[in-house]
């Protein structure tokens, strides 16, 4: 069910009513049933994969928990008689066993994800390689269905399992409750990727209906719908035209098109997240923020602290930290420090870990070489940012430029913005060659020879729609600016006079109804009588 369909609206309304009507101890069951209904409506067969992940992670977590208990008992029973060395030895043995269980579960679940999502990419690339090496063999493509949300729920469940392994959370006791944690429908489509210690208690617990909280949730969802249907879907028209037909346009148009692609995915993704968080908020559940005004970032590193936050934090906690803190990387650090000196030497393993992490971030987005490039590009600029930090500070000091002044900040934002837009050539183009061609054309023909006809007319949006696009982009910018300055918009609105509040609500609702890009296009000539 799409978030913007009438059917989903009815589903949600019913669910919310039932949720607050049933006795508190059954509320989580309502969420579980609702989540499975939602999932089965999308594709019944792929629910099998959801179940496999649920069962495997649940039981492996319990197994690890039991092993931990057994280990504790063994040590405390013999606390007096064992030396520190002996205790360390028993602990390591126990840890190795737990690690095996963990690795088994990870291989199973990531194996499923890899096979379904990346098999064809792997097959195509290998076949291509064979061709280059003149080996006459092809790996066949498989027609595989990608289960809804598999990238999200796999990461959320494996994150939980790793947390159990690390002793950060206790294993869940109830498999039905755990099934809810894996399948919770507001998150399943596009995240945010939640953490068990933040989410589980909220999901399993009981919630009283709170009118103010419900109002705020509704407002958030409305804002999300606005971003999705009025902004993103409108920008999409121009984006499709630019990427589909870039050879017909000059550099500035192509660049603007890619910028609009950034607007499109931001509006669509953050809009969807707002709808998810808004829905959850109505029910009293707080999902973590996934976006924090990403286009105000002052560096690529900062960008990833503001964009798809739940993913970059997952990567940081479950790939970057483990890698960079591992024995092998520590050892690497020792040798690089010997070769490159103290400062650079200790940074190299971090850089390597960073690059690997962003490689994963890249391919998480999709099974294409463009995403590999996208990931490495981002990783590279983060590394560059670290390397240039000290020289830049010295430069600023020498020339008396304030480190925190607004001028410097704006420069950083603009540079970052350009870097982000360039990266997006790679996440939207169908393949590397096209992306590079588009970049080349952008650079070589940047300024149009003749702009008398305007640069965006004839691209699918008429003049009024282009004007509207500009207006809503300004609205978006304004809202984001206020949010960046810490203004709590929903609270602020709540303080206004009822007429002002209601005017805002009606404007919001009717803006979506009128300016949203949905439904059968109105084409006047369809209605003209043609003589029969």
């Amino acid at each position, binding site marked *: 069910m799409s978030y913007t369909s009438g059917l989903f609206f009815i589903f949600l309304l019913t669910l919310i009513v039932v949720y607050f009507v049933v006795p508190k101890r059954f509320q989580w069951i309502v969420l579980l049933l609702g989540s499975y209904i939602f999932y089965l409506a999308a594709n019944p067969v792929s629910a099998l994969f959801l179940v496999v992940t649920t069962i495997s992670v649940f039981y492996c977590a319990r197994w690890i928990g039991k092993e931990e208990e057994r280990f504790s008992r063994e040590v405390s029973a013999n606390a007096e008689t064992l030396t520190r060395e002996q205790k360390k030895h028993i602990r390591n043995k126990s840890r190795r066993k737990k690690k095996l269980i963990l690795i088994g579960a990870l291989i199973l679940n990531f194996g499923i994800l890899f096979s379904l999502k990346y098999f064809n990419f792997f097959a195509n690339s290998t076949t291509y390689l064979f061709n280059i090496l003149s080996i006459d063999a092809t790996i066949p493509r498989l027609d595989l269905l990608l289960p809804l949300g598999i990238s999200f729920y796999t990461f959320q469940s494996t994150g939980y399992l790793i947390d159990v392994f690390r002793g950060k959370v206790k294993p869940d006791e109830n498999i039905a409750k755990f099934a809810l944690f894996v399948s919770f429908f507001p998150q399943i489509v596009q995240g945010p990727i939640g953490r068990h210690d933040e989410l589980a208690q909220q999901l399993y617990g009981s919630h009283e209906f709170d009118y103010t909280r419900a109002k705020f949730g509704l407002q958030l969802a409305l804002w999300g719908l606005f971003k999705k249907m009025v902004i993103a879907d409108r920008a999409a028209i121009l984006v499709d035209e630019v990427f589909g037909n870039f050879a017909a346009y000059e550099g500035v148009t192509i660049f603007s098109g890619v910028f609009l692609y950034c607007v499109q995915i931001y509006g669509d993704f953050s809009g969807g997240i707002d709808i998810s968080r808004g829905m959850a908020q109505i029910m009293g559940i707080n999902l973590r923020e996934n976006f924090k005004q990403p286009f105000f970032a002052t560096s690529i590193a900062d960008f990833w602290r503001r964009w798809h936050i739940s993913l970059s934090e997952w990567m940081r906690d479950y790939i970057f930290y483990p890698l960079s803190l591992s024995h092998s990387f520590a050892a690497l650090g020792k040798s690089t420090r010997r070769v490159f000196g103290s400062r650079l030497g200790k940074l190299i393993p971090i850089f390597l870990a960073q690059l690997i992490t962003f490689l994963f971030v890249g391919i998480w987005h999709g099974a294409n070489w463009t995403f590999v490039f996208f990931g490495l590009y981002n990783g590279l600029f983060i590394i560059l940012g670290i390397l240039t930090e000290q020289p830049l500070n010295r430069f600023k000091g020498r020339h008396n430029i304030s480190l925190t002044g607004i001028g410097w900040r704006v420069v950083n934002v603009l540079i970052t913005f350009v870097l982000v837009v360039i990266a997006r050539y790679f996440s939207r183009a169908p393949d590397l060659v096209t992306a590079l061609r588009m970049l080349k054309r952008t650079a070589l023909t940047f300024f149009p020879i003749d702009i008398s006809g305007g640069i965006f007319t004839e691209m699918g949006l*008429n003049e009024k729609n282009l004007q509207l696009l500009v207006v809503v982009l300004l609205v978006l910018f304004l809202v984001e600016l206020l949010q960046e300055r810490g203004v709590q918009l929903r609270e602020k609105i709540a303080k206004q006079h009822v007429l002002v509040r209601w005017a805002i609500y009606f404007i919001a609702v009717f803006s979506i109804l*009128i300016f949203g890009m949905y439904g059968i296009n109105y084409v006047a000539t369809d*209605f003209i009588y043609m003589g029969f």
Partner: protein
Amino acid sequence: MEKKKLINTLIRITGFLVIFVLLSYQLTLVFLPKQDQFKSAFSRNYAFYQMPKNTVDVLYLGASSFIRGINPLIIWNEYGFTGFNRSGSGQLPITIYYQMIESIEYQTPRVVVLDTVSMLSYYDLDVLEGKLRPKIDGMKMSPLKIDFIREVIAKSEKQTMFSYLYPLLRYHDRWDEITATDFKINLRKLHNDYAGYYGVFPDMKEIAIPEDFMIPQANVAELDPDSMVYFERIIRFCQEMGIDVILVTMPRDEWSYANHNAIQKFAERYNLPYLDYCLPENFVRLGIDPKVDFRDGNHLSMIGAEKVTLDLGNYLLENYHLADKRSMPEYDQWHIDYRNFMEKYANGDYSDGYE
């Protein structure tokens, strides 16, 4: 939540929803296209709903050749019985059917005159959504309309119940062409003054009747099975209600004897009279003149319409019990409407029958 706060909240929510409904209603009126198809459908339907109950004797149901060919006011003036022309340009069989059923909630006609032209073609409800939509939007909301919509949705891939219940969803992207006219015209206040007849227009064009037009032959054309389902439903419904049905083909150059045979066979199956005005003998009997009687090959001019209307009226009078109501005071409005029509005709006051 304590009781007082709960009531307070409920009042607020109700108030909000009420305002939302009112705003939606007004916005929908603005966003409904003011094109001819819409003005035509709305003005005719609303004129029909406003007629005094059980005063209409004959119902004319069909497509464009009917709406331009049959003027119930002329019949009233000449023969004294009433009728309403609920036809429409591009009327689909499904629309004809539902309008028939809907009519019974307002009137008890003695005879239903059915157009035969749409029996021969297949109508895809998505391809022709633009023709179907104004007719449905122009209907008053009722359980029957819901049934109508449900049947359309079942046969459609892109249309939704929501967009019919809340038409703003269908026309919202007209926002960039809204003009002052959209605020001035209220579709729901339009009223067709000619008992559904197309209107006062001077259009006239000489047409050429082909040499081999309507020469008798044995071929039988194929009636479209999907369309015929609706006509059969109408006929069965009328049989149950004790309403007589006759089939009529208006003069048109796109007709053939094979078509005639097909309709004739169908008529015999249900024991229905069939008046085919395309038959050469009828052309002769009525004095159909290709120079003045047509506005184009498929539609009659006002002059031609008068000829056919008078003949049809005469046929109805002779074969069915239709009382002469010309001296009944409760039917005064019909005299007024007829005089109004004649005045406009005389003055060349061209209009579609509504203001």
